Every structure is written in C-alpha cells, then in structure tokens.
C-alpha cells in the first residue's frame, strides 16, 4: 500500500515539474513562430520596431549577443583551459584543491553581483564605459567556471589513460599535456559550449554593463550594443503588444540556440564513451 502511495507521490512531483517546462516550450514555439512567420525570416537581421508600430526584427541584438559571446569566449577559454590543465596535472597539490574550490564557488555566484563588480572595476574604474566589451568581460567571468569545471572533469579521464603512456614514451612535459588535451578534446569543447550556452541567456550582468538601446548595429569595437535577453526583458516590461510579440520571437531564437548547443554537448559526450 505504501509502495503505491510513494509511486503516486513521486509521479505527481515529476509531472508537476516537467509539465510547466513543456508548456513553456510549446508556448515559445507557437507564439514565437507566429511572430517570425508574420514578419519573415528577416526577423534575424532587421531592426526592432517602434513601440506600438507593427513588427520588427532582432538583428541588432542578435549581432550584439554574438559579438559579446565571441569576445567573452576569447577571454575565458585561455584562462579556463590553463586552470583546468593545472588542476588536472597536479591533482594532489593543495593549490589545485584550492583553485578547484574557488572555481566551484564562482560557479554559483549570483550573476548580478558579477555584473555590478565589472561595472565598478571596468566601466567606472578603468573608464571603459558601458558597451559590448564591458559586457563581454562580465560574461567571461560567468563563463570561466563552467568551462573550467567541465574541462577538468573530462580531462581527468584522458589523463588517467594517457599520462603514464606519455611519460613512458619519453615525451616532454608540454607534449604530455598536449597529448592529454588533444585526447580529451571533446570534453574541452563540451566545456566551451556549456559555458557559451550559459552566457547566451544571461541578463542581469548586462543590465549593469550595457545600455538598453536596441537600434545600434556594431560600428566599432566599443559600440554600445545590447543583447537578446535584455531586449526580452525590456519588451516584456513594456505595455506594447507588438513588443511582446517581438519578445516571443526573440525567446524562441534564444531557446533554439540553447537547445542546439545543449544537443551538441550531449552528442560530443556520448561519442567519448
């Protein structure tokens, strides 16, 4: 009897937690496609509309997001990988434990705090101002722990396999490291993709490091561009129906990007095993 009850209880919990998400995905597909089909595929490159004035696109913010993610990746990949290599190669060292712990703590930080700190240090302190570069710095700080932890986990496996082999063959230290990294490359790429998927959807840090103007295409490196999540946030808050429609379309685009990245990472990990 109790067995049946607990089955029912856990089943209900599972249904309660999965159905809102499925409902959300359905909503995104229906409402988002509605907007995109109504406007045409130019949705991805056109400018956003004026308030209350028909439909527009998300071209400016899509470009801004891609720019920020690119710069953030360029900053965070070297730092993440070198940390991961150090922790993996020196597993018993106390430093490695400390770095691992600090990285994991950074992982769960409220992202709003990171945005504020980057604002204080870079936008105000170093006078970089509010633009795509400052936002990319904030995003890279958010991305680093994700990439590092994933790379550590995956390189541990290739290290276990290839470390002794490498030294037995007489390879130098840097060549052994190259061997381990190249054999664990799916894991490293997975880490990078996971980090990128995380920062594609981050809003809070961008509120402090960019301006919320959505009509600027990139002119130079320091153009004040914005990103897709900020557009969704501002348009969701607004009272204009057409802006809500654009926000649904933008949310669908965001979901599509995240699902593609997520599927890629699962595909890569499965190939390893």
């Amino acid at each position, binding site marked *: 009897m*109790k*067995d049946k009850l*607990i*089955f029912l209880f*856990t*089943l209900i*919990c*599972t249904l309660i*937690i*999965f159905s*809102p*998400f499925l*409902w*959300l995905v359905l909503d995104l597909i229906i409402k988002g496609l509605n907007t995109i089909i109504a406007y045409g595929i130019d949705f991805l490159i056109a400018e956003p509309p004026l308030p209350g004035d028909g439909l527009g696109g998300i071209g400016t913010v899509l470009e801004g997001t891609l720019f920020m993610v690119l710069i953030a990746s360029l900053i965070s990949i*070297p*730092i*993440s*990988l*070198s*940390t991961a*290599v150090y*922790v993996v*190669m020196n597993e018993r060292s106390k430093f490695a434990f400390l*770095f691992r712990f*600090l*990285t994991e*703590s*950074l992982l*769960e*930080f*409220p*992202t*709003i*705090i*990171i945005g*504020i*700190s980057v604002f*204080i240090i870079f936008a105000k302190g170093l006078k970089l101002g509010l633009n795509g570069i400052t936002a990319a710095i904030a995003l890279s700080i958010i991305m*680093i722990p994700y990439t*590092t932890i994933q790379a550590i986990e995956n390189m541990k496996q290739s290290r276990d396999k290839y470390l002794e082999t490498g030294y037995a063959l007489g390879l*130098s*230290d840097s060549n052994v490291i190259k061997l381990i990294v190249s054999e664990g490359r799916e894991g490293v790429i997975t880490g990078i993709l*996971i980090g990128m*998927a*995380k920062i594609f*959807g981050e*809003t*809070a840090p961008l*509120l402090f490091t960019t301006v*919320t103007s959505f009509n600027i295409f990139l002119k130079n490196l320091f153009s004040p561009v914005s990103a897709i*999540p900020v557009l*969704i*946030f501002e348009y969701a808050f607004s009272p204009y129906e057409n802006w*809500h429609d654009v926000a649904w379309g933008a*949310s669908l685009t*965001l*979901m599509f990007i*995240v*699902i593609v990245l*997520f599927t890629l990472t699962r595909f890569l990990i499965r190939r390893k095993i």
Partner: protein
Amino acid sequence: MRSNKVYYYYFAGCIAVSSLLFLIIISLVIASIPAFDFYGVGLFASYFPAIYGTIVVSITAILIATVLSIGSSIFIVEYVPQRIKGFFINLNDLMASFPTIVYGFWGLYELGPFLNSTLFQFLYTYLGFIPLFSTPPTAVSYLLASIVLAIMITPFASSLIREVYSKIPESMDEGIYALGLGKYHVIKIKISYIAKSILGALTLAYGRGLGETVAVDLTIGNSFIASPSLLSTGITIPALIANQFGSAFTELELSSLFSLALVLFIIGLVFIIAGKLLFYKRQ
C-alpha cells in the same frame, strides 16, 4: 620529474580565477563605503521591504523545490525504465541550463494569468482569513515569483540529488528487500542515507535562487512594501538593484545600491559555502 617551468604558465590562469573572487568582494566593499559613511548601518532598515521580499520569495521557492526535486529525482532513478531514463535526465539538465529570462517572461504572461484565475483565486476565496492569503490576486505577486523561481531551481537541485542518489550501491536495496520490506522502505532508507547531501544540494539551489534577478523582477510587481500576504506584490534585493540602477546618477545613490549588493553577496557566499560543505561530506 616534472619540470616546473611549464606549470608556471598554467598557474597564471589559476591565479586569474582565484583573484576574481577577491576582486569582486573588494570592489563591492570599496564602492559601498560612501553609503555607509553617510547613512550608517541604518541604511539596511530603510531597505527592509527588499530584504523581507528576498527572504520570503527564496524560502517559499525552496520549500516548493524541496518537495518537487526529491520527488522527481526518486521517480527518475527508481521507476523510469532504463531506456527512457536518459531522456528524462537530459530534459532535466536542459531545464536547469535554460535562460532564466524566458522563464520570467513566460511566467508573467502565461503562467501568471492561469494561476491567478485558478489557484490564487481559490486561495483568496477560501483561505483569505489567513494573513498569508489576505490580499486579492493580482497579476504579479510574491507567490507567482516564488513559483517561477521554484520552477527554475528545482531541475538544478534535482540533478545534484539524482547524482548522489543513483550512486548508492545496489547492495543497500538488496539488503532492505532481504528483510522483507517493500519499495517504500527502500526509498525512505536511501533518502535518509543521503540526507546530508540533499540538504547541501538544496542549500546550493537556495544560493542560486537568491541571486535570480530578471525572472523575479518581472513577476513580483516591484512595489516597495513588505506585506504578510503571499498574494501581494513586493520587491526583492536583486530586483531593486536592477530597477534603480538606471536612474541612480549620484555617487551616493550608486553607493547605496552597491551596499545592498554587498549584503546579497555575503548571504549568497554563506549559502554557497555551507551548501558545498554539506553536499560533499560523505557520510
């Protein structure tokens, strides 16, 4: 055996990562000093509705998330057939890494109206005498924000719990069955076995929930009041900072917001470290 030169290059990366943590703390402290100088510690008394709202929303969300995450983890590990278990696990992880802004946006325009006309109306009509449900349902409220927050942090807590739960050796199951007990007892004993890790997972999830800005900002109503009713509108610390930032031009205004961020940071750090210690201590 290892030539140390190579490792210095990699060490630099580690130093960068570790220094980030300290840089963040230091920058927040330095930026908050003007506000503390001017207002003294009474600053936080004036921010009380935000602190109150943060605590109420996080606690309600974590209560919901506790039940749902433990329940769904058990279901996925114990009852789902092997073939489709992977699908559910992947779905769960996808939900955990989904952009939170979309949850907030959808919560405001789809989930909100639905809950308003069903659950919240029910709570107000039949349980309105309890102070907890004493205001009429509005489009945004503490309860809506808590539910949206719970939807966001449950998959994360779930994946942590599932990780530990599935690693319990099968010999434990077999021993309990050998005693003649049923599945209910198996689950009960296994859960109490990993109770500490579950607590740690929920603490980590709570830490995450504290910092959630935009989803809560959209669904809580942003009225600077502290109401005992869950159906009323309110404000939380991240939402307050995010909203006020755009119009804070003087040094003092900015500094006050940063002092609030410092409070949030310290609370978050406490929960993250506590959660980690609980989660990783193997019994």
